[in-house]
């Protein structure tokens, strides 16, 4: 009986150990800094209409359309996704704390879908990051920021200070990776949102409007 107990304990303990392996970025060193905040400037200009041709791939299915985001005031963004024909599929109002569904078509009105998109868009549109730690490698500076139980890692290029990656991770795992390509560090030309725990990829390409 005791042997059995011990074995079980060892197993569960190792499972615990395994799952508690902390997530960290490879090959970086910690930098001493006084920086308290850093910013992701894409989507932060309220004068701008952010319009993107969009491809969503989810578990082998693909969905195409137009993604629109607009900063309405200091805290709220409006986000709309339409088909290529212009029919509205969803219309959200998003801030860091609040979330409102103005419209969503029935087929997409599932708790899991709405919650996933809400979190993705909140991360994508987040402007201000409170810096907990700064890391670096030869080419990049990485700002680690805590948000509730998660950590965000904002990657900027040392050469031109452009934001090019944003990782959202739990204590142990990478959950969502967003990559940005931009000519001017104000408007991202290409964005890819990639999930690691579910098969979901969202690609946005800027439409010159």
């Amino acid at each position, binding site marked *: 009986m005791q042997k059995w107990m011990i074995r079980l304990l060892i197993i569960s303990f190792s499972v615990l150990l395994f799952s508690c392996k902390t997530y960290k970025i490879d090959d970086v060193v910690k930098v001493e800094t006084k920086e308290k905040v850093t910013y992701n400037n894409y989507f932060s200009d309220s004068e701008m209409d952010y319009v993107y041709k969009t491809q969503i791939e989810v578990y082998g299915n693909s969905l*195409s359309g137009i993604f629109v985001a607009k900063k309405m005031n200091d805290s709220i963004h409006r986000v709309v996704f339409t088909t*290529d024909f*212009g029919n509205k599929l969803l219309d959200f109002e998003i801030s860091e704390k609040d979330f409102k569904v103005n419209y969503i078509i029935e087929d997409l009105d599932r708790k899991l879908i709405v919650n996933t998109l809400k979190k993705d868009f909140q991360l994508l549109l987040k402007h201000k990051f409170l810096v907990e730690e700064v890391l670096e490698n030869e080419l990049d500076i990485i700002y680690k920021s805590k948000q509730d139980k998660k950590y965000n890692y904002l990657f900027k290029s040392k050469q031109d200070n452009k934001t090019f990656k944003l990782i959202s991770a739990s204590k142990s795992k990478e959950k969502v990776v967003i990559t940005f390509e931009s000519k001017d560090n104000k408007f991202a030309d290409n964005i890819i949102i990639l999930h690691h725990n579910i098969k979901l990829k969202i690609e946005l390409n800027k439409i010159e409007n």
Partner: protein
Amino acid sequence: MQMKQISSIVFLFFTTLFFAQETKMNATEIAKFKSTVEKESKTIKTIKTDFIQYKHLDFLSKDIETSGKMTFKSPNLLNWQYTKPYEYSIIFKNNKVYINDQGKKSTVDGGSKMFEKINKLIVGSVSGNMFDDKEFVISYFKNKEFYITKLAPKTATIKKYIKEVELYFPINEPTVSQVKLIEPSNDFTRIVFKNKVINAKVDDSAFNN
């Protein structure tokens, strides 16, 4: 009277005047208009036209503009092709929908009543022959430039997506030059047809994906 009140009365006067320019057609006018459009649409074998699509979202500073060309061959071949600012085409053929999204091809099986309805709606929108009292509550208007039919869907499923379809017929032309699809939120898609050619020779190969 205060300045504010005066200005609002003036404003009210002008907006009433503006809207008053669109008047209801009387029974004789409606009968004549319907028979002309129906007669013309019976002679339509093919339609080739360019189009510009304006997606209006109230919160955006500018409508989203996409454009392309449309080819229709009676009774049910349709190629709706966006060329700017990106390539995207959707072909209705043999109860199937063929999509080519910037080179990425996919097929959706139609065969359903919904498919038939969409096909009818698009073809009807271009030819103008949509006087279907079973599907729509139809009202008829005219102004200096256009005869306008306003179609409010009767079916609950369609009502969720479309509040009203407006078809604009230039006074001296029996086919549609503008379509406006109004959503329940009052945001709308406006499609303007240009360089329309009726009954030009169209090969079936124009509907290959």
